[in-house]
């Protein structure tokens, strides 16, 4: 199939892009890597009158640590994230996540910002960012604002971004002593969207108790899910088998999956439990907690 007709804009600056978005508030979509948007248009599951291609705007692709944060440019390719030395060394959870997104050909084009801004609960980065307590930076006509990730996903394909805003940066707190994270995904076959997936992040204090916990879940409800109750449960606990299992059980209760070709509701919920247990275990291992 081919998309319905649209106008294509390739602004040279962010300001220009924002202005274009403001000009067509109902009818424009930002084109970043295009790996979600173009199939959508091509299959006519969606349409847009104007595509604003941000591919020509300089300075949107970077990965750097600055001010206690990992800063990822909105248009950074998944393949760049996957290969980044600093990410491989200090943020293995991001490598876990990036390397299970679709296939290498898609990852050469797909962008981290796009993966979040699309608002698809089946995408992989949202759960990880929820677990890590990330922030996203949005640029609009009235300037830049920072949105905490847990306020970002509002509904199915719906985010806190205003129609004239562009996601320009993702900020992730730098790892502290005793921290570790992991992302574990179940897919029907390599390259598929998750049947279920879980991201876990823990900070273990010097006394061996969990000081911070983050759990995010993929494709288990209309939005990416932050398993708050399970996170709370873990605080102050020793990260031992029984506690992790209980946290996983609580996390699974937070899911609202729908039945589809990937499985029944009960099945997905059970998988959420198993995967969260595994993600937590791996996160604890990486945190040096065993």
């Amino acid at each position, binding site marked *: 199939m081919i998309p319905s007709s649209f106008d294509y804009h390739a602004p040279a600056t962010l300001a220009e892009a924002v202005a274009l978005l403001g000009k067509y508030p109902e009818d424009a979509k930002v084109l970043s890597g295009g790996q979600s948007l173009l199939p959508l248009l091509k299959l006519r599951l969606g349409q847009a009158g104007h595509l604003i291609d941000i591919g020509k705007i300089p300075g949107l692709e970077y990965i750097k640590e600055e001010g206690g944060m990992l800063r990822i440019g909105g248009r950074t390719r998944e393949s760049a994230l996957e290969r980044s030395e600093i990410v491989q060394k200090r943020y293995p959870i991001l490598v876990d996540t990036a390397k299970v997104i679709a296939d290498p050909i898609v990852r050469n084009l797909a962008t981290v910002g796009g993966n979040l801004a699309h608002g698809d609960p089946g995408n992989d980065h949202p759960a990880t960012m929820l677990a890590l307590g990330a922030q996203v930076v949005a640029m609009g006509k009235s300037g830049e604002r920072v949105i905490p990730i847990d306020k970002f996903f509002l509904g199915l394909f719906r985010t806190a971004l205003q129609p004239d805003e562009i996601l320009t940066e993702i900020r992730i707190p730098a790892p502290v002593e005793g921290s570790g994270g992991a992302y574990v995904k179940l897919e029907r076959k390599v390259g*598929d969207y998750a049947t279920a997936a879980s991201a876990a992040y823990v900070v273990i204090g010097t006394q061996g108790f969990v000081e911070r916990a983050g759990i995010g879940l993929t494709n288990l409800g209309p939005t990416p899910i932050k398993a708050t109750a399970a996170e709370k449960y873990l605080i102050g606990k020793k990260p031992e088998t029984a506690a992790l299992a209980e946290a996983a059980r609580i996390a699974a209760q937070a899911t609202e999956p729908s039945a589809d070709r990937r499985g029944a509701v009960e099945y997905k919920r059970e998988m959420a439990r198993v995967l969260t247990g595994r993600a937590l275990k791996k996160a604890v291992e990486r945190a040096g907690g065993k």
Partner: protein
Amino acid sequence: MTTRNVGQPFVRRDGRAKVTGEARYSYEVAVPDAVYGVLVTSGIAKGRIVEIDTSAAEREAGVLAVISHKNALRLPGEPHLEGPDRVVQALQDDRIRYSNQPIAVAVADTFERAVHAAMLVRVNAEVAAHTVRVEDELHNAFPHKIMAGGKLQEPDESHGDVAAGLVAGAARVEEAYETPFETHNPLEPHATVASWSGDRLTVYDASQWVFAVKKKLAKGFGIPPENVRVVTKFVGGAFGCKGSAWSHVVIAALAAKQVARPVKLALSRHQMFGPVGGRPRTRQKVAVAAQRDGKLTAIRHETVSPTSRFDVFVEASALQARHLYASPNIESRHRIVRLDIGTPTFMRAPGESSGSFALESAMDELAHRLEMDPLALRLASYAEKDPADGKPFSSKSLRACYQEGARRFGWEKRPRTPRSQTRSGQFVGMGMATAMYPANFAPAQALARMLPDGSAQVESGTIDLGTGAYTVFAQIAADELGLPFEKVRFDLGDSDMPEAPIAAGSMTAASVGSAVLVASRALRDRLIRTAIVDSASPLHGLAPIEIRAEDGRLVATSGKSDSYVELIRRAGGKPIEERGKTAPGDEREKFSMHGFGAHFAEVLVDPDLGTVHVSRMVGVFATGRILNARTARSQFLGGMVWGIGMALHEHSVFDEKLGRIMTRDLSDYHVAVNADVGSIEPLFLEEEDAHVDPAGVKGAGELGLCGAAAAIANAVFNATGKRIRELPITPDKLL
């Protein structure tokens, strides 16, 4: 002749052209003034078109025509042939017989405009109640003769007393097995380019058999067959679905005639699900029993598969039970039911692949019940002659395949009981199964021509499905003509060339290979005769038997020689050619002919997620002569990978309410890709088979898939203790 080329692992000659994009597939052939046709297909499974509104589409710029049953040219003839041809729907009436049936074609000056126009067509249909569930029609199941291996076979066969044999065994298994609807999904979709010049028609088609396309179109359009030329130079995978000329082929020719322009028509991926066949679902029952020592006392294999309302295809799942294991009592039975679906068709190892899943799973279950090694059970009932009729096998090295496979794989390390071995938290399981596929051979013709420059040109109207036909037939001819491989060009894929059979049934190497061999031999003999009667030749007056072909020359035992270049120059400088023709004789009356093999698979099963990873497969095959070690290996490799897809992924899921396949693209119709595949080791044991065909070849395209899914399912049982009798083995079935 010395064989210097046959067997060598030459790289595929078309490989470079394919990876660089230089190879023009049928749709890509540049035809001047071509316009584009895009099909409109039905959204319902059964009914009648009451109204079809094409006005909006016709108003669009660039649209030449929208053709439906209302305005389509009436075909003067019924475009249907005997044999494996399929009944088509070429816009001749208002009936809707299955979902995704072509009901109109939009023709425009660009592909995009044609797509757009097709989307603007509005159809008002009267919906009739449909049935797409085999279960709902079981009461109407009926037997039908089976077209397999180029001949009609009986649906039922029985010898001995199976009921008594089943009771006589020390252990018995009686179980039901299922394989799902599957869809071929070659990378290259079906595509046809049709171009008329008066009443002459040229067609570039994604086809496995140009001669059938030619005859079908000639019949449908009421023109002499010699007026139709069909060309297929490259095929991007076919696996059986391009073995028949389906509706779109006739529609492309019809549209081209109606708009008086050449028309290019390709199916979208979505349109590949329904109108161009697929492997039908099978519901099978297998009963096997054996004595304590593993000797089988009875085999019963029954299967039901669906066909369409208007045509017949039988998935011959129970045929192999007739020939595979020694047993005094064997019964096999095929039934079909009619559903409101597009006609299913041959899909890689039709019958053998689906049937071997059931039979070889049952054998594994029997071994488990007897507390016997599954391999030992198979050896205990090793058939020394064909159990169906007592004929000797023309060659059979299955025992060696078992032994070599077990050794390479490390079968002795197989866990004795399920859930007893783990690796990084996953259960390890090992399974095996037997592979068997008939050695088919059909009449074929070829032409061999020696050119004045001393190089040869050989041709036959066969197809290279990606199998290596361009390469291996040049190897055969090179050896017969005593030429280096580089000096022989082999061409194919044109109905103006000598006639070849359908490129299917693993018989192209045997059939066309034999024709090429015979043609090349005839050419060599003619060149020898030319030399010995030529007074200027150093070979003048010698006896033909003294002369051999070597390095582009004819060489006598005395050492005297004459080159092809000189020979042709003296004979007038014109190319010299000979034709060759082969056909099966009565050798199949005397011998049973099959390729055999043994699969060994290791799986890792996640106990909590139910995911299965095939970590290792070893397949050892014996299938006569190997023409090219590299292309043959690729065939086995492809078959084994297909086995992984069949075992774990492939499933055309029907929405029973709407009567259509829901998994209509490659993100929902899963096939195994590189990242899904672990280590795969295909090996072959060469056989000398003097009976099977002149080339000594038994075929490699399908054997590698036979039994592969069963070996994996058996490994899953060995890992988990769970017997999955319904493919594909998805994680939910293991939890």
